[in-house]
Each structure stands twice: as C-alpha cells, then as structure tokens.
C-alpha cells in the first residue's frame, strides 16, 4: 500500500480485513497476521515454545473463521487476533484449557473482552505526543518507514541529528509502550 502512513494503513488494513471476511477469503485473512501472531507468542512465552503456541492461535482463528464466526465485522479482525493470542498464551500450561470454548466475543455480552486489548492506541497517537522536531522524525520513521538518511534529506538535517532524535524517540517510545 504505497503512499499510506502506518496509521492510515492500520485503518486500511481493518477495512481490507473486513472485505476479506465479507468475501469469504478466509485464508488470506489470518495470513496477514501470521508474523504478528508468531512474534507476539514468542515474546509472551519468552522463547521458542511461542512458535507452537502461535500455531495453535492460527489454528483456532482458522477454525472459527471456517465456522463462520466474526463475519458480522462487529470487531476489527485485529482485535480478535490479539484477544486469541492473549487467551492461548495465558492458558498454554493449564491442563485442559484447550477443551474450553473460546470466549464468545461475538455474543451480545462479549463487550468486556476488549478490556485488555488496546483498540485506540496507535503509533500515530504516540507520534503526536512528541515535541515537533522529534515528532516529525518519528512520523517519517515509524509511520512512513523512511531510513535515517532519507529522513535527514527530507528534513534538511544532518544524519547525525536524525540519529540523536531517534535516540530520544526510543526513550519516549519505551515509556509509551510501558504505559
């Protein structure tokens, strides 16, 4: 999706996920999430067992999609993905956890399930918390995916100034991620 920022890309991805759901292209839908699922499971499980966990997450999502769940688009598919990741990782070592049905997030009473999923926090929101100079560097780096030398050229700065800005941004990014 050239020309899109990562933030607008997020909206675009949600729309694309909904389109895939509506068209029944359910194999492409989880495929876009495989890397996120795998990486999150490895980080949450603190090691290679995360790859096994990720496979279960993918399988669970796949089965639910095949059973026709989530087609109403009530929740963005990404919310469902992150919910299932949390559920499977948390229960991985509990005996019999996989015999229980997944939380009925599509049910009318399923609103609470989003409580541990960040629906609104996006990288764009992080960028606007930064001072203007660093914010511009962060926007080009995080939202547009430019390299440091490209950012320097775009902003008419020395590359070293961009690296220094990135150092400051990283400190703030960490605080934001930990908040």
């Amino acid at each position, binding site marked *: 999706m050239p020309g899109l920022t990562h933030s607008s890309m997020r909206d675009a991805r949600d729309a694309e996920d909904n389109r895939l759901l509506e068209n029944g292209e359910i194999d492409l839908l*989880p495929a876009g999430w495989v890397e*996120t699922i795998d*990486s999150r499971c490895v980080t949450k499980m603190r090691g290679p067992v995360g790859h096994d966990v990720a496979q279960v997450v993918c399988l669970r999502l796949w089965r639910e999609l095949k059973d026709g769940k989530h087609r109403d688009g009530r929740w963005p598919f990404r919310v469902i993905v992150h919910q299932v990741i949390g559920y499977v990782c948390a229960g991985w070592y509990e005996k019999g956890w996989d015999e229980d049905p997944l939380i009925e997030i599509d049910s009318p009473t399923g609103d609470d399930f989003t409580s541990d999923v960040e629906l609104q926090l996006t990288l764009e929101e992080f960028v606007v918390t930064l001072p203007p100079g660093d914010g511009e560097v962060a926007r080009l780096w995080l939202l547009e995916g430019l390299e440091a030398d490209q950012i320097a050229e775009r902003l008419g700065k020395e590359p070293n100034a961009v690296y220094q800005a990135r150092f400051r941004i990283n400190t703030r*990014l960490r605080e934001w*991620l930990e908040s």
Partner: protein
Amino acid sequence: MRITPEQLLDDFVDRWTRGEPLAVDELLSRAGPQADELADLIDAFLERAPRREPTADAIAFVRSLDAPPLLRARQARKLKLDDIVAGLVEKLGLPENAREKVRRYYQELELGQLDPADVTASVWVALAGLLGRDAKGLAGVQPTAVSAPAMYRDADYANDLPEGALTMSLVAGLEVGPDEVDRLFGVTSSD
C-alpha cells in the same frame, strides 16, 4: 559493551518498518538477562502496530492448517516423507530394509490412522529431533505426569530379537509376526 533493550527495540522497529523478517527469537537471545524487558516492549509494540502484507509463506501456512499437525510440522521444516523415514531409521538404529515398514507406519501416524498412544517414547524423541517440535503433543497424545525416559535403540538391532527373527521378518521381507518396527510403533499385528 552490553547492548541495551532500547537498542534492540530500535533494531526491531527498523526491521518492522522495512518489512524484514522480525526474528524475535534472535533479538531476545541478544538481550540476554534483559530479554524479559525487551519481550514486553516488542509485544506492546506489535499490539499497537498494523499488520504487514502477508507473505507467500504465510498464505501457504494458513492453507495448510487443515492438514494434520504432524504433516504441518513436517511441511514447515520442508522435509519430505523420505527424509523423515531416513531420519527415523538412523535415530532408532534400524536396518535399512526396515524403511518400507517405517514409512508405512509413520505415514499412518501422520494421517491419524495409527493410534499415537501406543507409539513408544523412542519414536517420539526421534521425531522431536527431526521436526524440532514436540511430536507427541502434535499427534494429540496427552502428556503423562511422569514420563518414561526415552531410549534410542542401538544399532545392534538383531540382539534383542529372537534368533532367526531378523532373517525372517526383515532381511527376507517376510512378516510372520510383530518385529522391532511393530513394537516401536505399537502395532500388534502386521496386517
């Protein structure tokens, strides 16, 4: 100089913005004692970031999800059936002429046609080595509280068999009764 979680997070974000493989395992390994700290940061980042374009491998993986787990694990390792068979024969210390039967039993196990509960620990350990995964779990066998130590067979395969059995069942290809391969895969009759 010790690398900090911030530096590794920076590395991770660069990979993410460039569309490169994220290789989180490697980053966590580099973080050493600060791996927990880094893991939380990466996890929080991924929870807030949009997904990337699916790769061809990811699409193939999802399309394979209907396949039995052992088969998926083998495909994930890009191993052919013959690769697994050769590995099992070697790791279990079986003679070359046992390949055909090992192939048949493994294929049945992979496709869910052979009861995994009767398969011996040696086979599961060998498969775990080949697949890099807990093959027993993949096959749907519930873990037991106390598991028996896994044992590999030595290459002196004929020593444990009744005199003449090797000649009759494997060397000559005649299956007159349960042999070592049957025992390993928990098959009581060679039908």
